[in-house]
């Protein structure tokens, strides 16, 4: 039993924290939030140079990390700084699938990702599928030597910036079958691929993706035909660890902002942090924040275990973080009062990051149900 970070991870944490505290202040973030791209190419380059992207890949994939605690260390820092750059989508989802499934040519793209030169997006969920991982109605049909994709993909984060989209489509089976789902690498600008982009309320951009007779060579398939489900499940598991850790980081900052506000804001002639009702509620926030930290540790530390056990731990963590996140986001806003309602003050951003995390890869209730299924087994 050992809860110390390794020396390497501690260094990564320190470097990343310093970089972000130097380069990612509130003004910068607000500029990025309002930009057309929805993220900063300069910051992205900086992160790549620091080795942050490389830390999310294993050595045999060209990186120097890739384990659960590498992911949690990186994303906790990104969350603390309120970073909106699409690290989760490019590196964890896209990069993770490429590294796990790609043939030699496809895996070469991972190097580009690690270097910061290539963005990716996973176009998997569909309108009406909510968070159900196996619900794929987009189709992949062989025609001649080619494959033709048709269908629609919902809320594809980072789709506009991505040089390549990883698209799931069904080669066989009914709409909800885990079997029969394949993954394809679709280059940006492919014929028949159209995006309708928009900003997201908590920062970053996404797009509705339409696939209308998109023709691909057979070599565009990622991994084995019809066997995309388990790799997708693993990629989403890693993404859940990243999202949980990012949310933990954002909760740390929201809590710290609240602490500072309680100490400085005066009402009725004294700092509001001297009012016992707020003190006790703040104490509860701190207690739950430690719960969330432990939940992230449990999820990250079990990421390499068997899929069902892993996913049980992950759903446990996401459920807990969903509940704690709501508490911390709402209490932080409430204790701040009016100032927290303004776009300008940075708490608003953290509250939105925390809250909207609940809308990716399953919400609090969804993970409760999933936990029940997996823990009953």
């Amino acid at each position, binding site marked *: 039993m050992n809860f110390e970070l390794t020396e390497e991870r501690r260094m990564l944490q320190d470097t990343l924290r310093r970089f972000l505290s130097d380069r990612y202040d509130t003004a910068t973030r607000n500029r990025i939030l309002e930009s057309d791209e929805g993220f900063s190419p300069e910051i992205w380059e900086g992160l790549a140079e620091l080795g942050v992207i490389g830390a999310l890949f294993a050595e045999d994939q060209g990186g120097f990390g890739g384990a659960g605690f590498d992911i949690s260390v990186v994303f906790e820092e990104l969350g603390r700084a309120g970073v909106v750059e699409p690290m989760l989508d490019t590196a964890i989802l896209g990069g993770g699938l490429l590294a796990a499934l790609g043939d030699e040519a496809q895996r070469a793209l991972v190097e580009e990702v690690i270097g910061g030169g290539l963005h990716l997006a996973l176009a998997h*969920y569909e*309108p*009406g599928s*909510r*968070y*159900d991982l196996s619900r794929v109605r987009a189709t992949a049909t062989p025609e001649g030597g080619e494959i033709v994709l048709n269908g629609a993909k*919902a*809320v594809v984060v980072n789709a506009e910036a991505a040089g390549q989209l990883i698209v799931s489509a069904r080669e066989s089976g009914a709409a*909800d079958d885990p079997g029969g789902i394949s993954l394809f690498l679709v280059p940006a600008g492919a014929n028949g691929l159209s995006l*309708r*982009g*928009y*900003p*997201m*309320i*908590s920062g970053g951009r*996404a797009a*509705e993706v339409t696939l209308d007779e998109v023709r691909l060579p057979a070599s565009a398939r990622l991994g084995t035909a019809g066997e995309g489900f388990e790799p997708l499940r693993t990629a989403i598991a890693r993404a859940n660890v990243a999202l949980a850790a990012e949310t933990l980081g954002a909760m740390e900052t929201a809590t710290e902002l609240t602490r500072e506000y309680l100490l400085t*804001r*005066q*009402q*009725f002639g004294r700092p509001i942090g001297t*009012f016992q*009702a*707020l003190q006790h509620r703040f104490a509860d926030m701190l207690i739950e924040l430690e719960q969330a930290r432990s939940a992230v540790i449990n999820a990250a530390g079990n990421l390499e275990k068997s899929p069902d056990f892993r996913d049980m731990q992950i759903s446990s963590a996401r459920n807990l973080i969903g509940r704690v996140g*709501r508490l911390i986001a*709402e209490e932080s*806003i*409430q204790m701040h*009062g*009016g100032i*927290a*309602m*303004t*776009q*300008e003050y940075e708490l*608003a951003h953290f*509250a*939105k990051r925390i*809250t*909207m995390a*609940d*809308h*990716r890869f399953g*919400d*609090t*209730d*969804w993970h*409760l*149900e999933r936990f029940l299924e997996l823990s009953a087994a």
Partner: protein
Amino acid sequence: MDLNYNEEELAFRDEVRAFLDETVTPELRDKVRNGRLTKQDMENWHAALNARGWLAQNWPKEFGGAAWNAVQRHIFEEEAAMADAPRIVPFGLSMLAPVLMKFGSKEQQDYYLPRILSGEDWWCQGYSEPGAGSDLASLKTRAVREGDHYIVNGQKTWTTLGQYANKIFCLVRTDPNAKQQEGISFLLIDMDTPGIEVRPIILLDGTHEVNEVWFTDVKVPVENLVGEENKGWTYAKYLLTHERANIAGVGFSRAGLDAVKRMARAEMHKGRPLIENPHFAARLAQVEIDLMAMATTNLRIISQAAAGQAPGVESSMLKVKGTIIRQEINDLARRAAGPYALPFPSEAVEGANEPPIGPDYAGPTAAHYFNNRKLSIFGGSNEIQRNIIAKVKLGGGR
């Protein structure tokens, strides 16, 4: 005891329903649901109510009001909310007007009240100041008498819809040496007086509904003083009791709950409508149960008010429980929307001629959730309400 409306009340409700049916067009309803009302929409609604004689619901007849009793007002509020009608902008009608009627001069009443009815004046509120928060009486905006004018300097904030207003009623400090709640006066100010600047505050959901109002050497004629100099705190408190009408927001909660149910019937979860999912259904049912009880609490208090008993600490209780319920409904709506709560499309992307991103109900849910965090902060935060309750119930000794 009788939980049902009597015949007279039922007849009144039918009248209200008929009016709403006719006046709230589907286009208007959609704008209300999506939070996209324009100034013109609000003015039109105001005019429609005025034409029907239903605008100044709580005014006495002598001032051109409808003089509804508490039950009638409740029926209208509830029906209007359920019909997704626009809210009546309250600053002139329900906040300033009662103060003018009670404390204003005959001249002020004769001049201002008809202009409120006609819509000629759009009033906003100059109460809150930066740094004051829940401690309203700590306000710093100064008004110094010079001849037959006051010279006003200072800053107000959280001024709702101030960008549309041509008038503002303000609390200003006229005696800086008096104790905190003394030395405050109540002034009526033209927004186009030189020296006034309105700066937008963008809320966390991207909306512009509140403002800062800055005053630099603003000249206000002394006849714009309401009542006596340095007695403004009395008028301010009187106004705040009127702010509390419909504090429970039962109608809004019912409308919100209906909206969540519509969404949860449409959203599919594992091949079944989300509303059949026991975990979601349980949370929905609990808030519905809470609302059923609060609706009765609200009616109990309204019926006391109709019988002439002034609501006391009950208003605070309704405020706290009412906001908890509304915010819980906002949370359920956001969750029901699923991944489609994430998009935050601008008018540019999702314009009049473009279809919405995802199901049409999903788009505004996250923005509403964030925006309505204000419910437990503004208008006397829930912490202040709990202080009031505790003071009344524990403060009195044995």
